[in-house]
């Protein structure tokens, strides 16, 4: 009832032409505004900013390596790639705002890729020749599959032992263009989110994305739910399969480069950080206050469980029963957190997750 009243009040203001303000007089709207503002200020903006800087480091490392393909230079590429992957794990579940403009999300990381599109498109691109003419701008017009991190992982991060210099030259031409493209996209995301007029911070009747603080807060809640689901449904389950003999370890994110565990740990930590930074689970009514500590505890446990897998490759994690068991625990913990977020935490924010509204069909 309260939510509908708030919305009605906001619409009334909209009709009268006044600004939709988070008035001190309405605590629900004020809290929604605070959650959105903190999510943007303390989580989203810093995350995009860090990602941007790390992509620049990666692009430099690739440039150096391609100019002088030595072992130390390659090590720098691998390290820089790892830092970019963990920075991206903090962002790849934010399916709104500048990330969905020009399909930036898919162009940074074409994933999941069950049909092997990255591999196929890269082969076609290299076979087509004229790679000297590729640059950051022209590769941006190619298939999303050749533009981003999964392509870089195959081109210059993981190299076969017997890499021949000519083959590497082709890889480098594509990789330098793709790395430049990722920097450009990361820069555009960083810049778009740094602006004062970012749509989610300016809800109102003229805003095509968010007409009210309720809708803006709902986006933050949805991001959290999407992030929790994505780790379970996209990063873990397809690789684990139903049983060890059904496992497909190469479906783990960044399995080739061995960054899977780092990615998973960063992705889970990201969920906890977003919840903390936004305060979405804070200030709940006393009867619901357990939700914050419960969510915090379960995410920390899940994070620790994943971090303890470090040093194992994807195949071992997916097939050895003891290691699989740890990830089974993680999926259960994530599902539990998701349920708490979708019910108790959502209600505390004056939101309800619709049966038909969350996921278009």
């Amino acid at each position, binding site marked *: 009832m309260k939510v*509908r009243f708030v919305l009605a009040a906001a619409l009334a203001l909209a009709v009268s032409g006044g600004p939709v303000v988070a008035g001190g007089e309405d605590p629900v709207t004020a809290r929604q505004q605070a959650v959105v503002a903190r999510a943007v200020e303390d989580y989203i903006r810093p995350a995009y900013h860090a990602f941007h800087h790390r992509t620049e480091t990666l692009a430099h490392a690739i440039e150096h390596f391609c100019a002088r393909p030595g072992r130390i230079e390659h090590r720098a590429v691998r390290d820089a790639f790892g830092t970019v992957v963990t920075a991206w794990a903090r962002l790849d579940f934010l399916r*709104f*705002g500048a990330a*969905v*403009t*020009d*399909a930036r*999300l*898919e*162009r940074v990381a*074409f994933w*999941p*890729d*069950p*049909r092997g*599109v990255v591999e196929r498109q890269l082969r076609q691109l290299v076979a087509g020749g004229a790679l000297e003419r590729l640059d950051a701008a022209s590769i941006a017009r190619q*298939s*999303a599959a050749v533009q981003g991190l999964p392509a870089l992982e195959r081109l210059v991060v993981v190299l076969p032992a017997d890499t021949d210099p000519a083959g590497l030259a082709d890889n480098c031409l594509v990789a330098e263009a793709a790395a430049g493209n990722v920097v450009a996209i990361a820069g555009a995301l960083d810049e778009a989110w740094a602006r004062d007029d970012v*749509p989610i911070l300016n809800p109102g*009747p003229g805003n*095509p*994305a968010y*007409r009210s603080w309720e*809708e803006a807060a709902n986006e933050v809640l949805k991001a959290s739910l999407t992030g929790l689901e994505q780790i379970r*449904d*996209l990063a873990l389950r*397809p690789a684990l399969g139903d049983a060890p003999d059904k496992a*497909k370890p190469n*479906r783990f994110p960044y399995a080739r480069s061995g960054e899977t565990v780092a990615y998973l740990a960063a992705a889970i930590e990201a969920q906890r950080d977003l919840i903390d930074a936004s305060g979405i689970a804070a200030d709940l009514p006393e009867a619901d206050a357990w939700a914050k500590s419960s969510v915090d505890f379960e995410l920390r446990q899940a994070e620790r469980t994943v971090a303890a897998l470090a040093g194992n490759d994807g195949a071992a994690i997916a097939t050895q029963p003891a290691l699989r068991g740890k990830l089974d625990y993680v999926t259960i913990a994530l599902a539990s957190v998701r349920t708490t977020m979708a019910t108790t935490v959502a209600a505390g924010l004056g939101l*309800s997750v*619709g*049966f*038909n*509204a969350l*996921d*278009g*069909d």
Partner: protein
Amino acid sequence: MLSLAVAPLACAGEGAQYASACRFPDGRFGVALLDEAGAILRTADIPARGHCAAVDPSGRRLVLFARRPGTFAIVLDRAGAAPDRVIEAPEGRHFEGHGQFSRDGRLLYAAENAYDEGVGVVGVYDVDKGFARIGELPCHGVGTHEILFAPDGRTLIVANGGILTHPDYPRAPLNLADMQPSLARVDIETGDLLESVAPPAALTSLSPRHLAVDARGRAWLGCQWEGADEAAAPLLAVHAPGADLRLVALPDEARLALRHYVGSLAIADDGRHLAVSGPRGGIVLVVDTETDAVVDRRPLHDGCGAAPATGGGFVLTSGDGDVVVRRAEADAGVGHAEVAWDNHLRRL
């Protein structure tokens, strides 16, 4: 005394019945038959979340399809006389949640995803042979969602959403940077593509998902926008055979209220008024298909199901369990059931 006791049952038996997938309060999924007042007349459990029902021309039998990427469809007899049956999608295919009976009721057409090939197909099932799958038609597109017969009964109108998915990543879109949406008209005898239209290049992120056919035989498309949040993307389009796809510009306020997603469409018995549900925005619009004007707006939290009401207007359902009869810009009845109604409502 006696007549009072039996009257509701008699009414329930004679009035229009509707079918919808639902979720029960304990979390189980099911399919329910209901009347316009929202009273549940019959329920059946199903193994996982359902989506939309196909109703045979006699109105006596329905098939409820699993929500994508489900692989089951449940055959249900209205009177409960015939045993219920489960249809399974073949290896390499899953249901997309929608299907249609042929005009003579002998064949069932099901929208399916041939996921390894990355294309949409229509599975053809023979009712008299125990719903055996006897063939397959191409959809001439990817990510097929709703299918509907044109008034000629031999052209299948196909909403190709343009989004590739794979059941290993159940609901994740795999090609948002390179969508290929279209509306195809397919000959059901030959599978030939009679006509295909698509949104203009600037709107390739527009995914056609839901369909309705008006009295003039035009196909209306309800879409989902997968592009930039800020884009003023149209969510409604109409196609007459032989013509270009026409995008319908709803007033900004109505378009924004839909939040980039149309959950279902229904055409009223007058063949003219179109219900456009927006579960994300919590609103159902009624559009006059002769003028494109929005003639009614009914806020309905999580409202998605829509079907024609007997006597004009629409029956609307919501994830909160509401059942609303909406007629002439007013509520003609508001009922409630203790279930979450799923996306689509069909009249038997």
